[in-house]
């Protein structure tokens, strides 16, 4: 991208000693990503990061769906901070974009309305006997990876380069709305031209694609997919983005939000089944990666250990382009070697018309 004023929008990101909290949904849809993050931070970058089983959902999905009241979510957030405090940490990092938005929102609310913080401390103490310090540094995990992108680049095994052509891979980056649209100054590069993913892509040899609908929301939007009748609106947003990026022939999409990864991936299946439209090279879909998966591939992690068999759009064409060796027979074997089941073939991966016929075969 031609813009370099992202440097004016810097946020402080702690360098070491992180207290880590997970996302509710990523472990289902991109199950290897969070483990990969911890492994990369600890083993490849050499940082201290702690994860504890005591932490819970931030309840953001309930909050954004109007079923969890603000006092409740504030107290849940306070409890997470209490766990961090008890563990002796000051830097809080969250794997989920919505959680990151929630933590930021609650801290800002406490800052603007100190009486809400007082009340929250009281609720938390009454309910659990716990007390908390506010984090000294709050970052999304993509911020943390952005911070260490140079260290990862130094250990790179498979740069984001097409081994057949020698050209940089063309990458669409997509930032979750709750990363920088709520509090633009809390995102690397602000909200219009965020640099958090673009920085990783460029450091690791790829080329960022700027297409007209780059800033458009993926359509996830909580209530817009929770209610079936609203899903036509949700999918229309992804559809708009996919149509807009099509002429640029992107090799893959990378996102930093659980919802965006999930919907940009899975809606490709839906669109193919509904309308017969497929995207990507040879009409076999555009793979959608999390930034941990992208980093994992770059560092030479096994794609199946990264959980990439769980994607709706097959990642094999991308692995081939990056020159990554993989065992096709191992794709649907779990870590213990047991068969984990295999999805039916789908139009999205086959450049063909919708699949009802295939299903009956």
């Amino acid at each position, binding site marked *: *991208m*031609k*813009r370099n*004023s992202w440097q004016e929008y810097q946020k402080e990101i702690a360098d070491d000693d992180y207290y880590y909290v997970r996302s509710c949904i990523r472990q289902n849809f991109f199950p290897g990503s969070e483990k990969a993050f911890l492994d990369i931070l600890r083993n490849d970058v050499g940082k201290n990061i702690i994860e504890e089983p005591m932490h819970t959902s931030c309840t953001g999905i309930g909050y954004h769906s109007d079923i969890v009241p603000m006092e409740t979510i504030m107290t849940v957030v306070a409890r997470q901070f209490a766990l961090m405090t008890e563990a002796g940490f000051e830097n809080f990092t969250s794997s989920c974009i919505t959680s990151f938005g929630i933590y930021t929102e609650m801290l800002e609310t406490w800052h603007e309305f100190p009486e809400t913080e007082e009340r929250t401390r009281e609720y938390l103490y009454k309910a659990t006997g716990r007390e908390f310090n506010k984090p000294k540094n709050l970052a999304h995990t993509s911020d943390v990876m952005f911070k260490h992108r140079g260290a990862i680049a130094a250990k790179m095994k498979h740069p984001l380069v097409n081994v057949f052509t020698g050209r940089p891979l063309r990458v669409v980056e997509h930032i979750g709305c709750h990363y920088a649209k709520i509090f633009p100054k809390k995102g690397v590069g*602000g909200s*219009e*031209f965020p640099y958090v993913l673009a920085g990783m892509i460029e450091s690791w040899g790829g080329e960022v694609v*700027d*297409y*007209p*609908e*780059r*800033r458009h929301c993926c359509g996830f939007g909580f209530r817009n997919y929770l209610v079936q009748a609203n899903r036509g609106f949700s999918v229309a947003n992804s559809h708009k983005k996919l149509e807009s990026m099509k*002429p*640029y022939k992107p090799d893959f999409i990378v996102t930093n939000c659980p919802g965006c990864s999930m919907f940009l991936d899975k809606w490709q299946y839906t669109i193919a089944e509904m309308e017969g439209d497929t995207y990507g090279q040879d009409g076999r879909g555009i793979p959608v990666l999390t930034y941990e998966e992208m980093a994992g591939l770059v560092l030479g992690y096994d794609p199946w250990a990264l959980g990439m068999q769980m994607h709706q759009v097959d990642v094999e064409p991308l692995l081939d382009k990056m020159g990554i060796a993989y065992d096709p027979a191992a794709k649907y074997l779990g870590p213990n070697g047991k068969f984990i089941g295999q999805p039916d073939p789908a139009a999205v991966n086959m450049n063909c018309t919708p699949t009802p016929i295939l299903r009956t075969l």
Partner: protein
Amino acid sequence: MTKKVIIIGGGPAGMQTAASLLDLGIKPVIIEKSDRIGGKLNDWHQLFPTFTPAHEVLAKLKGSMKDARVITGTAVESIGKDGVSLSDGSTMEADAVVVASGFNLFRAELKEELGYTIYDNVYTTVDIEHMLNDGKVAMKDGRTPQRIAFLHCVGSRDEKVNQRHCSKVCCVTGVKQAMELKAMFPQSEVYNFYMDIRMFGPGYEEMYRRAQEEFNIHFVRGRISEASETIDRRVQIKAEDTLIGRPLKMTVDMLILIVGMTAGESNRRFAETKGVELQPSGFVAPADSFTLNTCSGVPNIFYAGTVTAPKNLGESINEGVAAAQQVARYLNRR
């Protein structure tokens, strides 16, 4: 004893102040920070609403103040009641000071979502004036534009960039340039996206109507919220056509941002002097906005032109006359 008057700024207001002081038998000194007088008038091509070449007006102003002393390449750092201190470290004494330091143009790149300096075919009205002066208006790659969009109120009436005021002259500038480009490219489609059209001056409304009826320029009431580049380096824009209540989307060859006036960068510095006050917009506040528009809170400091508010050229020049009168009155009373 001859009285010494310093005029800060050699733009139209400062030039007219000098000319009027000369008429009154007072020899002023103009201190101009750039290397030539004329201010931003040097950059303009034709003036609304008459399409008078800017250089003609500039030549008249220059002719009427040619006996004034002009110091260029020197900025005024601060103003005191006995004179001013200059960027070269020296001080200059004066019996009266006229602040005619003008305005700054809004930096369109601050509206990041519009892509100025990022995308090839996003321009400002100032770029267009330069192109018109150079005699060649074209897309970045030299092609002739088929579809042109103007966006009004860039850096005006927008609290997101801390510019709540109306810059007043941008509406008519945008319409003027739309007409110039349409005349240059009769086959092209020209759109103006606006929040309100404020045609405050004589002949402006009539010009706007000619733009609609005779020049076939389309006016869409709605603000462009976002511009992005397409694969062929054109610009996709999104707005609402508020008069039909639906979003509107289109791709244009050139997007031209009609940039507003922001308070002069030196205003803050000058306001360190007691009696020189700033308005919330950053423009300096006249002593009274009805009867003392060219006076400050200090008896021997005066204002002329856009240092106090966005104004058109005629108004700025008139303030030069008015400020000179106030200066003469002050000097005679002493």
